[in-house]
């Protein structure tokens, strides 16, 4: 793996980033019942997420569910298409686009919509249902992102949800990957991430020299 770049034609955005090899190495140490906290910055979210998801898909032949609360699923799919990555084997649960008129009229069969990011239990149930329909033996659930969910949900409820979420998938041996921008995430949620996640990928701090 190395440097990938591409142009998202619909968005007109050039995406250039270098896959973070350290993340791929770190992923060799985790098990299916792990929960990984991935701390990203506001500007490196896609690169860090891709550096996490691509090794899971390509090295470990995993499939799974991508829960998109920060951006619409189409935008995410097209960002991957722009760098030549096929994500048709990943099922997307889009929590954003139902709030946009016409947002649910998309050409991708692997996208399902949930009415709102406040329907936390529905998100979990829909994810469990989707996992029953996938044909990959080993699966992950990527939650993108806790800071986006915190826009709509009470801090205590989100902290409780995080606890339920991690334990639900741990019990089913589905790898949880929880993305968050730390400085946009409530303290109680961050504390729970530290407590319940088994691993951390910290790319949330940008150090200027």
């Amino acid at each position, binding site marked *: 793996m190395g440097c990938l770049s591409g142009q998202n034609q619909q968005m007109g955005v050039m995406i250039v980033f270098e896959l973070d090899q350290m993340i791929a190495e770190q992923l060799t140490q985790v098990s299916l019942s792990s929960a990984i906290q991935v701390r990203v910055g506001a500007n490196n979210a896609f690169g860090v997420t891709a550096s996490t998801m691509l090794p899971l898909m390509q090295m470990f032949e995993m499939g799974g569910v991508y829960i998109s609360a920060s951006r619409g699923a189409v935008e995410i799919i097209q960002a991957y298409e722009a760098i030549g990555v096929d994500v048709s084997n990943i099922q997307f649960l889009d929590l954003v686009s139902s709030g946009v008129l016409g947002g649910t009229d998309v050409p991708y069969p692997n996208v399902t919509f949930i*009415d*709102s990011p*406040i*329907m*936390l*239990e*529905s998100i*979990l*149930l*829909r994810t*469990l*249902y989707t996992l*029953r*329909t996938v044909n990959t033996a080993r699966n992950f659930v990527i939650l993108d992102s806790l800071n986006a969910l915190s826009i*709509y949900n*009470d801090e*205590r*409820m989100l902290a*409780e*949800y995080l606890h*339920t979420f991690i334990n*639900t998938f741990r019990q089913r041996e589905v790898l949880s990957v929880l993305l968050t921008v730390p400085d946009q995430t409530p303290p109680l949620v961050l504390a729970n991430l530290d407590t319940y996640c088994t691993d951390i990928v910290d790319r949330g701090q940008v150090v200027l020299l």
Partner: protein
Amino acid sequence: MQSSSVYTRDRCVTGIHGLDEILRGGIPYGSTVLAAGTCGSGKTTLAMEFLVRGALAGEACAHFTATEPSVKLLENIRQYAFFDMNMVDSGLINVFDMDVLYSWLGLEKASFDLDDVHALIKSIVDIVNTIGVTRLVIDSVTTLCYKIKSEQLIRDFLFTLGKKLATLGCTTILISEITSATENAHWSSFGVEEAIADGIIVMGDSERMGHLLRFLQVVKMRGTSHSRAKHAIELTPLGVMLIPMLKWGASADKTSRWGS
């Protein structure tokens, strides 16, 4: 020390994802369970899945529909992948229109008296006995009981029907339409169904910031310890799925009310 053994009743395993866990193994065999819920809460889907899971295990099942014609019921339920029309064609799931049954019995009238009620009980029990039905759904008992004007007669009807079906080893779900699923609500339209039923499963909607979240709660089930927590439900193509509702969510949600 003496060893103690705990008696447990045999269960009718519903096969519904999560419900058997809530019931600690399933519904005790021969029970009459009231599935009470507001409109759109998933009562019919839950009841139909209960029959489908039974049919998949080789049990004979029956569904008496009083709220919509059987053709419409089956058309609506066919959207679910768990349902297979072959179960109906092969006689594992037998669907009866109450209107047709009334017609057979000469009960095409606005209200039923004692003789009519006994004729109705006899015909339902005969069907269950003849086919060997072990899972039965009446959708809805509310619509059926509208024709029975006396509260005492409704009580007799439900008590006698439940007793006879239990004797035959038939586990029954009576669907009850209610307008409110709040804490203080009655779980039945006539007030007597909930007292007679062995179990009560309440279904409704919680409103969270303008969105409706379906829930299910087992408030009573004789013969088994069970969870009494509120569970969120999702009607998926593979069937009903449940998980416990978030505690902080439940405290913030408003339980929807209609017409009361």
